[in-house]
């Protein structure tokens, strides 16, 4: 009976309220705690993994769900990082305020740039996203008095989290702060994706013309998704700036935009968990390979990308899905006997 494949696969919203099912969040928290216990000396790397996972989630929402092809997501990430830096320098050292303002900064850039870009599609859209990110990069490079130019924006202090936990050189606070933010963002984005809002976004990805014909407002919906993605990317940037105590031009660079696309493609673009998985895989390989030679790292990631695209179009998460399906089949066979 499972031989009949429905012509169009649409995710059916779960019958129970989505926020009652926290399986993914619990797995994520446990994995984070396990990583903390296993690799206490690599907390810096683990913190980066958590913040980059949030960045990847923003792209998974924008690209994986709504199908907005972008190679300029770094614009939103970098904006969040600089806003968080400015908040700490000129306004308040409180991390939560900086984080939220960073999110707003990313969302604002997304709203403004999306409003002009999202009328176009395909290659033109990709080029516009690249151009906007490059424009921001050049402006940040030019406005040295504001951004510190090549040296980056540094020298800001971050006050203890909730007034209790200090961000010290041990990095414990930074790690749990980033992990907590990741779990919370994952929960919020997952609920958004499972909601009618997310369903409409997927429908637009599959057939914008039909959504338009059904009375959906494609442009406004894409703009809303892009803005939410901007907020999430801004949060990721702000977290990175706060935990590493620096916001630099590299965060706006094309390489950063391309890197995060590679991450979600490795993990799988259609699922949010793929974004986290891909980020962890990418950064683990980076960590191991870059100790050898930065160019060998490029070779590894390049050939891996080609391999994944040819053999595993649905990403690493697809591999896990297949393994799970295989295990279930085996289990059923064993049960029948």
């Amino acid at each position, binding site marked *: 009976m499972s031989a009949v494949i429905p012509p169009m696969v649409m995710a059916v919203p779960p019958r129970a309220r989505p926020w009652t099912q926290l399986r993914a969040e619990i797995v994520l928290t446990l994995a984070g705690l396990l990583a903390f216990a296993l690799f206490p000396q690599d907390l810096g790397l683990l913190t980066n993994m958590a913040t980059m996972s949030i960045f990847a989630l923003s792209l998974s929402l924008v690209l994986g769900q709504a199908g907005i092809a972008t190679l300029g997501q770094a614009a939103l990430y970098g904006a969040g990082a600089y806003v968080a830096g400015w908040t700490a320098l000129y306004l308040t050292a409180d991390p939560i305020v900086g984080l939220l303002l960073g999110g707003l900064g990313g969302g604002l850039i997304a709203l403004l740039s999306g409003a002009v870009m999202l009328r176009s599609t395909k290659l*033109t859209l990709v*080029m516009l996203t690249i151009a906007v990110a490059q424009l921001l990069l*050049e402006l940040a490079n030019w406005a040295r008095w504001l951004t510190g130019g090549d040296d980056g924006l540094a020298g800001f202090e971050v006050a203890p989290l909730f007034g209790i936990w200090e961000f010290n050189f041990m990095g414990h606070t930074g790690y749990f702060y980033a992990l907590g933010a990741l779990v919370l963002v994952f929960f919020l984005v997952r609920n958004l994706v499972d909601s009618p809002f997310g369903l409409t976004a997927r429908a637009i990805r599959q057939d914008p013309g039909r959504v338009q014909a059904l009375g959906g407002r494609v442009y406004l919906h894409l703009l809303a998704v892009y803005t939410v993605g901007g907020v999430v990317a801004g949060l990721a940037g702000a977290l990175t700036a706060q935990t590493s105590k620096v916001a630099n031009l590299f965060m706006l660079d094309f390489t950063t935009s391309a890197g995060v696309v590679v991450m979600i493609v490795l993990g799988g673009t259609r699922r949010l968990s793929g974004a986290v998985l891909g980020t962890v895989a990418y950064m683990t390989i980076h960590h191991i390979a870059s100790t050898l030679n930065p*160019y060998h790292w*490029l*070779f590894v*990631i*390049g050939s891996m990308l*080609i391999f994944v*695209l040819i053999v595993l179009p649905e990403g690493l998460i697809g591999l896990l899905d297949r393994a799970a399906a295989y295990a279930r089949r085996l289990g059923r066979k064993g049960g029948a006997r």
Partner: protein
Amino acid sequence: MSFALLSSVLVDGVTYAMILFMITVGLSMTMGLMRVVNLAHGAFAMLGGFLAASIPQRLGVPIGLGFVLAIALVALLALIFERTLLRRFYRRDDLDQMLVTIGLMFVATAAVNLMFGSSVTSVALPEAFGGSVDLGFRSIPRHRLIVVACGLLVVVVLWFAVDRSSFGIRVRAAVDNAPIARAIGIDTTKIYAATFAIGAALAALGGIAGAELLPMEPTYASKYLVILLAVVAVGGNGNLFGSFFAALLLGIVETSMKYMVPQLASAAFFLTMIVVLLLRPQGLFGRQA
């Protein structure tokens, strides 16, 4: 603006534009023809430059012959890439195409670093290219004149090839409507492969000719990728003159800003691109898709 400044801007801007044109025209053709976004195109220019720098030394052939060998080798590599890898992605979506070519770009960068080292390599030019030419009112490096002549020659030859030859007619038919072209017996597979190889060869030529302005280093492909894509997007896919005028526009905008407000040269470049794409989403000469 004084006359000296104006002439400097024009000479440097046009030279830069011709280099951009030679590198991007192949990219524009393959995008128009196969609807494939080849982000690894800059890698062909880079390979051309590095091979041109090393072949004359290692094989002991004259520099000019070395250039020809380098360009032919790049065309061959492009052909192999198109036949073995890229053709699998013609029916995939834009993003997958971009990613597989980004993957290739990474691999090419690593390979170039392995073979030629990570430092900036200069391409030795034949002696006839050195020195300067006195035009009466000012002297111009001869290299610049040769680059501009090269670019103009490429435009004229390509225009004749596309507009007059039977190969060009087939290419245009495949650009206009590939299924109908196949239906009337045009072998689009061969057209794709040939166009891709020719585009890569032109990129190699542009890379060699432009090595003075865009120096050869392993990160070349990713460093100039955005600029190359900008020229193609502004010109419109698959349009010879679109690429030419887009290269001229962007090249002169960036060069003139470099003379006047150097910090904002790149910003002006991208602002021009955004304005053009907002006014004409299909590019200067693009048609509605």
